[in-house]
């Protein structure tokens, strides 16, 4: 407790000075700026996308020929487990977090998230958790139980390597990261909107992210319970999934899928949000049926809680449960259909500009519809007993995930790149990127629907020649098409990487408002200043920015919508009345210190509990430093303060 007696508030633990660097690596590592954190999220997630993608390519290579030997059986099992885990938890979710972090405060007209230090903590936890998870490759093999890790196959008896321990503990760490950031973002959206921004004035992206954060908030504890049970079983001998002692393996399935189904909407809704921004912008008209889109998003969020057992139609639930869940699952097609219809009607009557972002967004409508419709065919429970655990399912979920979520994220890259980096991505390369991915996705995943219905189960290291059937269009043919397709996707992704490099090298700056956009985040400099807005805008309507640029003007042909102000003019007007004394949250050591404690504890659980004690000590140090550190240090204010009252410590948690 001696630590508490720290002399001045700008020092932490009375020893270290607060980090204040504004440039160099320190300005990133200790930052609490939501924009920097957003970028870091994006970079790391992109890296994991390449990792997960390479794993996918290995899978496709192995399946390109019958009885192939690119991967051994054990390695193959690790490969698809880690492919799925990496893609879902280390790519799609964090990439959505990247967009959310960067744009949520901007879209609601705030200067940062509600709890900036917690935000940094989330990022570091995610990074350390992801690295921890992947070190298993070098420490005796990765997890090999499939991404839903059904018990009892996941118990120590059947999977003796440490792979699953890494998986459980890694997901636990990543889960804490997401839970913390979900609370953070919900508070940000509910409490920190600019004056005048009613809930029904919020951009759809903000809305969808809000729904996602609620899903995370309530779904993560469920998988946390499941993971605790599993790790207590594996590491401390508890009996939870020990069938000999009377355990019921279906308990795990329920816990996993109560989380797992909301999870799939966690994956898709951010992209729904992104394309709901992109489509109106490039159609030059507001989103059709804004309210319907918002409410259907919320409805998906709610109904998504009542359908999880559709992953268990063959598990032996009994006919009553199966029937109930089958009907509930079909219900969810209704709100999703509302979205598809409204996007299409947004295009209708518009003035369509086919930028790369727009093409990705339209691609999402088309590809997601295919995946969604095959989802409905699974919802028909008797049919699903034929389809489940075959490539038909693999086809379904890659259409919705790659065709829906991933393409949506790419739409976001092209749309928001000029905002984040001040330069436009090359449209020509962008078109290559889009078409390669679009054809690639169809070539890879459409054949899987056929393969599945023709009887090829998933998670099989080999498929035998004698079961390929006859004729030209046999299973071998479709498997090879799928493999070719996956390399098309990879070359599409490669185009994107090239594009990033090319764009980074070119000198030309992007115009302030390249797309003639509609929402608040465009009412900032590109890239935005550290404090986002010179003055917090007052919001009067949905598409605030658009309405500041355009006005109804009487012309000789009657009233017409005319651009009366350029983005530069709008911005200049805001700048003219800039706020003074903007106090930004200051950088801090503690998020990264605290986050570092957790993987240490986790290694300890696997190898030696003594190490866990060290980790716990680091954690405690982090917490103490954190609690005793004021969240605003005096010398890092944007505009040095004049009066005591304005610099005083405001929050003990953030």
């Amino acid at each position: 407790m001696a630590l508490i007696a720290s002399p001045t508030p700008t020092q932490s633990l009375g020893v270290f000075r607060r980090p204040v660097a504004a440039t160099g690596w320190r300005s990133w590592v200790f930052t609490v700026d939501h924009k920097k954190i957003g970028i870091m999220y994006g970079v790391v997630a992109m890296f994991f996308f390449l990792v997960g993608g390479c794993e996918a390519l290995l899978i496709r290579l192995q399946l390109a020929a019958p009885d192939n030997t690119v991967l051994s059986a054990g390695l193959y099992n690790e490969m698809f487990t880690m492919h799925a885990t990496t893609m879902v938890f280390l790519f799609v979710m964090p990439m959505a977090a990247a967009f959310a972090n960067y744009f949520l405060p901007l879209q609601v007209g705030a200067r940062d998230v509600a709890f900036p230090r917690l935000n940094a903590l989330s990022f570091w936890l995610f990074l350390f958790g992801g690295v921890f998870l992947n070190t298993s490759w070098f420490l005796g093999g990765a997890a090999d139980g499939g991404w839903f890790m059904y018990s009892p196959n996941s118990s120590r008896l059947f999977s003796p390597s440490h792979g699953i321990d890494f998986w459980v503990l890694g997901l636990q760490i990543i889960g804490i990261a997401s839970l913390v950031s979900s609370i953070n973002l919900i508070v940000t959206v509910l409490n920190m909107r600019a004056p005048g921004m009613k809930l029904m004035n919020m951009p759809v992206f903000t809305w969808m992210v809000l729904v996602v954060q609620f899903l995370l908030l309530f779904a993560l504890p469920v998988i946390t319970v499941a993971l605790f049970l599993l790790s207590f079983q594996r590491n401390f001998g508890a009996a939870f999934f020990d069938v000999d002692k009377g355990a019921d393996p279906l308990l795990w399935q329920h816990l996993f899928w109560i989380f797992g189904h909301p999870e799939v909407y966690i994956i898709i809704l951010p992209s729904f949000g992104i394309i709901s921004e992109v489509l109106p912008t490039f159609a030059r008209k507001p989103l059709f049926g804004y309210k319907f889109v918002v409410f259907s998003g919320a409805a998906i969020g709610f109904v998504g809680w009542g359908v999880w057992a559709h992953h268990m139609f063959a598990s032996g639930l009994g006919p009553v449960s199966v029937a109930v869940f089958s009907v509930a699952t079909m219900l969810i097609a209704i709100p999703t259909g509302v979205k598809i219809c409204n996007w299409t009607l947004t295009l209708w009557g518009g003035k369509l500009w086919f930028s790369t972002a727009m093409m990705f967004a339209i691609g999402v409508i088309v590809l997601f519809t295919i995946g969604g419709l095959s989802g409905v065919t699974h919802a028909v429970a008797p049919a699903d007993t034929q389809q489940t655990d075959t490539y038909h399912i693999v086809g379904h979920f890659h259409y919705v995930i790659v065709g829906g979520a991933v393409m949506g994220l790419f739409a976001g890259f092209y749309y928001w790149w000029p905002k984040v980096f001040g330069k436009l991505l090359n449209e020509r390369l962008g078109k290559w990127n889009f078409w390669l991915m679009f054809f690639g996705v169809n070539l890879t995943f459409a054949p899987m629907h056929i393969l599945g219905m023709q009887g090829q189960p998933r998670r099989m290291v080999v498929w035998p020649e004698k079961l390929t059937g006859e004729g030209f269009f046999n299973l071998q043919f479709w498997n090879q098409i799928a493999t070719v397709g996956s390399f098309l996707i990879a070359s599409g992704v490669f185009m994107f990487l090239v594009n990033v490099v090319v764009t980074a090298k070119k000198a030309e700056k992007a115009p302030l408002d390249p797309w003639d956009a509609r929402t608040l985040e465009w009412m900032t400099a590109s890239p935005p200043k550290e404090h986002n807005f010179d003055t917090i805008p007052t919001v009067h309507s949905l598409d605030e920015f658009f309405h500041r640029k355009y006005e109804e003007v009487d012309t000789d042909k009657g009233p017409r919508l005319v651009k009366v102000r350029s983005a530069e003019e709008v911005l200049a007007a805001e700048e003219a009345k800039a706020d003074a004394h903007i106090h930004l949250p200051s950088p801090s050591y503690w998020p990264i210190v605290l986050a570092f404690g957790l993987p240490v504890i986790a290694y300890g659980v696997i190898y030696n509990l003594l190490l866990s004690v060290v980790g716990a000590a680091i954690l405690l140090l982090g917490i103490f430093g954190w609690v005793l550190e004021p969240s605003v240090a005096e010398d890092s204010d944007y505009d040095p303060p004049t009066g005591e009252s304005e610099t005083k410590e405001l929050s003990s948690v953030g």
Partner: protein
Amino acid sequence: MFVKPSRRRRVAAAAALGLLLAGCAKNAPQDTFDPAGSNARSIDDLQRPVFYVAGVVGIIVFAVVGYAIWKFKDRGQDIPEQSHGNPKLEIALTILPAIILAAICVPTVSQVFSLDKKDNNCVINVTGQQWWWEYDYAKGSECGGVVIPESIVTSAELVIPANTDVLLRITSRDVIHSFWIPRLNGKRDAVPGRLHTLRLQADQPGLYTGQCTEFCGLSHARMRQAAIALNTADFQTWVTNQTEAYTAPEAGTAAAVGQSTFIAQCSRCHQVNGLQDGDGKPVLAEPDLYVLSGAAPNLTNLLTRTAFAGWTFDLLTDECRDTLWNAPPDEFGALYLKGVTAECFNEANLREWIRNAPAMKPMYTDPKNLGSTGGKTRGMPALGLTEAQIDEIIAYLLERK
């Protein structure tokens, strides 16, 4: 380069759908669109219309999107009216899918219940384990008029009477597996500690392949199975054959030597019904001492089956296998009952298996890595036999039919 994205997209969409409809392989043995029994057929009858509905909805969506792309692309027109929607249209577009889905719900629910019926005389116990299926025909149950005189335990091939409702009682000895014969019915998980049922019925004699479809560890891909449907007379013959008393090999033959090697090396895990040791005592396998799941396939009539070790490796040569698979229904039974004849015997497979099973099928048998299981294997270990011993064991096994 990118002149007409609209047309491209439509072509792509049409192609994607076309692939789905036209792209089925001929005679894929596990084709769910080619049901061969009442249960699978009722699923198919439900599934196809749903696919058509989905297809039509998809085509409508693509058509509207395609048209909008073409019609409303930027040709220099004015900024469109900033309209926020049309509630009536929205509500209509919400109700329409609801109606379609309601229409799908009704037959779905009724199918769920009708597929779950359990009224049946012919009950077969099915047990999954890493990585093969065991079938246990309960003594006294009546299948297509044939009464099972005493319990029959086999593996790999589930022999059933054609045109008869069979009820499987499915469970597992270790992890979760899933029993699936696509042309006869959907899947049912085999969950340790739980008993699930599944109905099977095949219209005609024939061979219907299947695969374990719940991920069950290392050799999940090599855990296959087949259902063999025989007409009643043939089924009776099969039952009689399976329950025939054991005949020991003639003394002095290689098979007789093989028998003693078998007793020494194999019998601790594998049961051969009726087998007696030199003292005339019955030889009883104790697989629970050596194998984690506590069982190994019963080898009493090994050579009546056409494949082994999770129905992965053929006991028949490729030509004989193809002949059998393609046999017309009325000839199938006779051909199957011949079993593995000398000219059809795929010796290489069996030999390699006995020589070094884990090299053929990945399994956990390395003594160094059996710490967590207390020394028990998951699968069959390599036994380090000499080629001569293998010859003799094969000679012995050849008589197991």
